[in-house]
């Protein structure tokens, strides 16, 4: 490569320009820093950020998921695997996980495949599946990125009871879906009473 000919450059080009760039550096020293100190400081996401999924519960603790697999059907990445099963309605509610006939016995989301597009959320007929703002979906092995139902279920809030148990809010599932249940959940009972 031929050296540029210094003879053709003006005095400004020779003396001022090489130091002018440091001015940008100097000015920036007095501006507010944009760097986020992740993971030491976590910034909140946008409120409707598509993060990790959650399987919601009715106020009495029963699962909203009915195992219909519409989420799996809607999923463009084939990341969701569901197996339905029949709620056992015979034995005093001891086999009931959701109102109605059917519940999701197996529910897995593979976060290696999930593109967090939210089509599953749109497909869910019972609003059982929603997305949280949690975005920390990384791990050092593939197996742990397949989230099981136990990983995805919403935590039990006060007043909720761990399924399986009978329908506590209403007599039939249709009332649950229509929201026709007495709003406050019954007084919490200790597990094992049933």
């Amino acid at each position, binding site marked *: 490569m031929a050296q540029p000919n210094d003879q053709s450059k003006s005095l400004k080009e020779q003396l001022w320009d090489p130091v002018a760039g440091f001015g940008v550096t100097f000015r920036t020293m007095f501006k507010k820093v944009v760097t986020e100190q992740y993971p030491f400081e976590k910034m909140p996401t946008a409120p409707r950020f598509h993060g990790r999924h959650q399987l919601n519960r009715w106020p009495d603790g029963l699962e909203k998921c009915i195992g219909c697999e519409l989420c799996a059907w809607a999923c463009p990445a084939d990341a969701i695997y569901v197996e339905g099963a029949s709620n056992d309605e015979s034995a005093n509610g001891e086999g009931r996980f959701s109102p109605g006939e059917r519940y999701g016995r197996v529910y897995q989301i593979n976060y290696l495949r999930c593109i967090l597009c939210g089509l599953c959320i749109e497909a869910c*007929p019972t609003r059982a599946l929603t997305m949280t703002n949690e975005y920390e979906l990384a791990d050092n092995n593939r197996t742990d990125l397949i989230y099981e139902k136990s990983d995805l279920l919403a935590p039990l809030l006060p007043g909720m009871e761990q399924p399986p148990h009978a329908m506590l809010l209403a007599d039939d599932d249709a009332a649950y879906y229509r929201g026709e249940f007495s709003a406050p959940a019954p007084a919490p009972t200790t597990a094992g009473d049933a």
Partner: protein
Amino acid sequence: MTVSTPSTGSTGGSAEMDRTDLVTLTIDGVQVSVAKDTLVIRAAEQVGVQIPRFCDHPLLAPVGACRQCLVDIPDAGNGRGFPKPQASCTLPVAEGMVVNTQATSEVADKAQQGIMEFLLINHPLDCPVCDKGGECPLQNQAMSNGRGESRFSAGGGLKRTYPKPINISAQVLLDRERCVLCARCTRFSEQIAGDPFIALIERGALQQVGIYEREPFDSYFSGNTIQICPVGALTSADYRFRSRPFDLVSTPGVAEHDSCGAAIRIDHRRGRVMRRLAGNDPEVNEEWISDKDRFAFHYATEPDRLGYPQIREDGELRPASWPEAFAVAARGLQAAGATGVLTGGRVTAEDAYAYSKFARVSLGTNDVDFRSRPLSAEEAAFLAAEVVLRSEVTYADLESAGTVVLAGLEPEDEAATIFLRLRKATMHGTTRVVAIAPYATRGLTKMSGHLLRTAPGDEAAALEALVEHAEHGVDSTAVILVGERLATAPGALSAAVTLARRTGARLAWVPRRAGDRGAVETGCLPNLLPGGRPVADPAARVDAAAEWGVDHLPDAVGRDADQIVAALVSGELGGLVVGGVDPDDTSDPAATRAAIAAASFVVALELRETDVTRAADVVFPVAPVADKAGTFVTWEGRPRPFDAVFSSPSSLPDLRILAGIAEELAALGHGSPLGFRTVVEARAEMEQIGPWDGERASLDGLETAPHTPSTTGHALAAWKLLVDNGTMQDGDKAYRATGRFPVARVSAATYDAHGATLTLTGDRGSVTLPAEVADLADDVVWVPANSGGRGVLADLASPGSRITVTGGNA
């Protein structure tokens, strides 16, 4: 995604219809000529217009129940039109008729949308949890021919609701809210299966499918109603909520439970069979299968399924690698000396061929028999002379035959597809069924059949008598179907042959098990080599030896299964290679167990752990039919090839295992290898060998032991019910519960003498059963052969022996 079997066109009119019978009409402006009496809905299919429908089914009589198929007919062929839209599923075509479907007519489209709106008024919105969701004609047609919005719900209407779901049998669940009252299930039960235990009851909005409280819907064909239900009103307890249609991969298959070769569709998800449906094969099973073919598939996934080879070391079985097990089996068989081979009747034709060749080429013996049931030398001779290589009778022939004689065969229990064909033929009034049986069974009654009451053992005389009696119509148009049970009636098979020869009637042998006919064709018999080559014929032996590239084949006719058992007990045979044989099925279960214990070396090829594998020295797990390709040969002689559903590297077909042992034996200087390792190679070799074109074995000169009826006690008649305790029906409680309750059937006189509970005592034990009166002879008792305990042969009596009947509990 979902792949369905290619439909081979059972719809539409008969293609061979005479040209002069064609009727020309105009559908949506397109002229089409169809056979006379074709329904408009099918004529429209010919021009490519799909009229929505629920109640219409090509194999059921038209009923016009759902009204979804309304079309506009401006000209009915007489110049005048119908003032209102007409149901195209009940309307035959007429010359010059003009039909406008929803494709071109506003009137038809509006009418269809109106009907759909009516149907949806009370239909629940539970598609997400409904098993039919995704493959539902109502869903699909509501999308294609319905209105987007419901005026009923928008107007605040309340749907009619019912408690969900109710059991109409142990297996079939009914969700009345979802029913659109198309009457497909009730029409199927009445017209096809002949079990009219469900009917439409009540009227108006409360109309529903109901059962008689005292008669549960225990039909052997109830699963078909689930399949043809156009909504999710009928579901099975077995498949309920197990998967959705879009999860399933479908593979066509062949039912492995009987010799009918019914086409099925196997729907599987992630390496597990979820359900099985009837395939559509107009030449064989049309669109129907029995519940056994539909629901009995869990046996292959039972926990006692064998997963790896085992060898016995210091008296205990321990896991072994495949090569080690092959080597140990070969060394053991070589040390054991003379070896017999029992294959069982469940093998595919390719596996049977491997057993047959393994016995001849590797073990150098003709001691091979597929019959794991009561048998006779007469039967082996009959199979060699009259059955192998012959396919004279087909399902279509059953429909065109003037008379069908059933001997030693109860089609409803033992060959369900034959039963449905015969019932169809008798309903048309073209065919008459004559049964040589101990009593008029439910199946025979449903076929309006004629009973020739015959005590077990007297079948030969009854068949002989048929020649003399012209009123039974046994002539050259007749078909004689003989079951495998006829082997236990001395002279009966010969009598059937004589009857066929003298009347010109065609004869067919209907075994119970799927592999039996294929095993006959491939020579799993002591007197037959593959392709129908008689062992006794030197030319046939030379031919087979040349094809196999061996110097010579054993020339003496071998031992049959009973003789193999006897020879093992006496020590004449040392080794035994045994396939899927349940000792309790054999003519002497105790002797078979003793033989397995007495044998110095037993190689067992089994799917699941059994008494045989527990006693064996080397155990090989074999592939269930879902894991291997193969061919079943139906009772007609029709090959029914099928492909593997799953590919599992640890699940090998029998022929691969036999090839492995044969190679090790050859390395030890014993026989030669089989020369094939895969199903494809075995098929190619079978094709190359081909059928024997020389002289067939003959039945002439066969001496049968004369039947000397004993007069003491009662004669025992028994056969296996369709749903019973067979090991291939394990794993589905709901299915088992649909079986008929085991009872002992006796004559009214015996019932009066001994009461409602009978204790039957034979030479092998005694059995207590509730009694039921049937039109039996006074000295005959009928019991189900395998519906309690270990089965009749193990618990009660030897074949052909007499039993004593006493009242009450023993």
